[in-house]
């Protein structure tokens, strides 16, 4: 058996790579798949705290690559969700402790035993980025509806193709932090604008919502703790990764205020 390795990347920092890795992974596991979340952000480890698994780390990615232990020994099993595991990054300063070939071999190994390897990529396009993309079959590019984020995403598309050997049809984008109130006022790029500019297919659309911060505070993936629109967006995304044909929600913003405004003709 060989699973699929997907890198979650963006170019620009702070746009939601770690959040997406955690929740997409959890949603895929809840759907019955075995999933390894691989934190490739060496020196800035964060997937562990987002998942609430920070107190259970014994070995990390660098230990595995250096042969201190097998990757199986370093995996942290999530006790809340069957089939979900984390391979934490190292908190060392030397970001170049790992070579691309080592990373590639490791991802190949994990793929032998698991359905999915989700690789949380560091921001930027340096060595850490190259290490994160080298073993990936597919890429999810996270973009927020902002000029700088879309621009960086376009750079990353080019690099995934050239340096990662990931063909365009294996690249997908996720639009994160969309605010329908601003989209309606035409003060924010909408999904079709970004699709026009980047020309890659959309895998998911996630609203901007405070529940993301609340869930990070608790160290609990949103798909576990909530049934709101953000959780639904991640379940839908997982469904699409599994090849299901899930339609996009036309109006992700169904808040009471906007419903009232619509009623009084103050919003579309």
């Amino acid at each position, binding site marked *: 058996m060989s699973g699929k390795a997907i890198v979650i990347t963006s170019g620009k920092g702070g746009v939601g790579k770690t959040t997406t890795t955690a929740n997409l992974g959890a949603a895929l596991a809840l759907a019955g798949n075995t999933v390894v979340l691989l934190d490739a952000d060496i020196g800035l480890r964060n997937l562990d705290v987002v998942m609430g698994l920070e107190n259970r780390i014994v070995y990390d990615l660098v230990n595995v690559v250096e042969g201190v232990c097998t990757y199986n020994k370093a995996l942290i099993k999530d006790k809340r969700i069957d089939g979900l595991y984390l391979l934490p990054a190292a908190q060392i300063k030397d970001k170049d402790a790992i070579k691309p070939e080592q990373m590639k071999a490791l991802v190949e190994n994990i793929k032998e035993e698991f359905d999915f390897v989700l690789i949380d990529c560091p921001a930027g396009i340096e060595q850490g980025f190259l290490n994160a993309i080298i073993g990936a079959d597919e890429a999810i590019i996270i973009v927020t509806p902002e*000029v700088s984020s879309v*621009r960086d995403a*376009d750079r990353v598309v080019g690099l995934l193709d050239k340096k990662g050997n990931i063909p365009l049809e294996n690249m997908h984008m996720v639009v994160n932090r969309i605010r329908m109130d601003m989209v309606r*006022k*035409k003060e924010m*790029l*909408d999904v079709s604008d970004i699709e026009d500019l980047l020309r890659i297919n959309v895998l998911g659309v996630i609203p901007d919502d405070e529940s993301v911060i609340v869930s990070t505070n608790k160290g609990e993936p949103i798909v576990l703790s909530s049934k709101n629109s953000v959780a639904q967006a991640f379940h839908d995304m997982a469904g699409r990764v599994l090849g299901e044909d899930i339609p996009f929600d036309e109006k992700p913003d169904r808040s009471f205020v906007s419903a009232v405004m619509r009623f009084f003709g103050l919003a579309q």
Partner: protein
Amino acid sequence: MFGFKKLFSGEAGSKNAAKERLRLVLIHDRASVSQETIESMKRELIDVISHYIEFDTNDLEFKMESKNEKVALIASIPIVSNKKSIKGA
């Protein structure tokens, strides 16, 4: 007047500006040609062309455009027509 038109043509809001700016930035990024390179290319071309024809330097237009998945450099050089003939001819 302009504001009125903008309000009702659905063009209000900053997202159109964002999209238009991005469209140009991406063209330059993809072709790996900076605005600076274009500027210096422009100066050299003006120099060469001015040896042969007379034109209005204020009316020149150099831009990158995306056509059928390819990026093209488009130059528009309006020749001054009320002057008699081509220089040096």
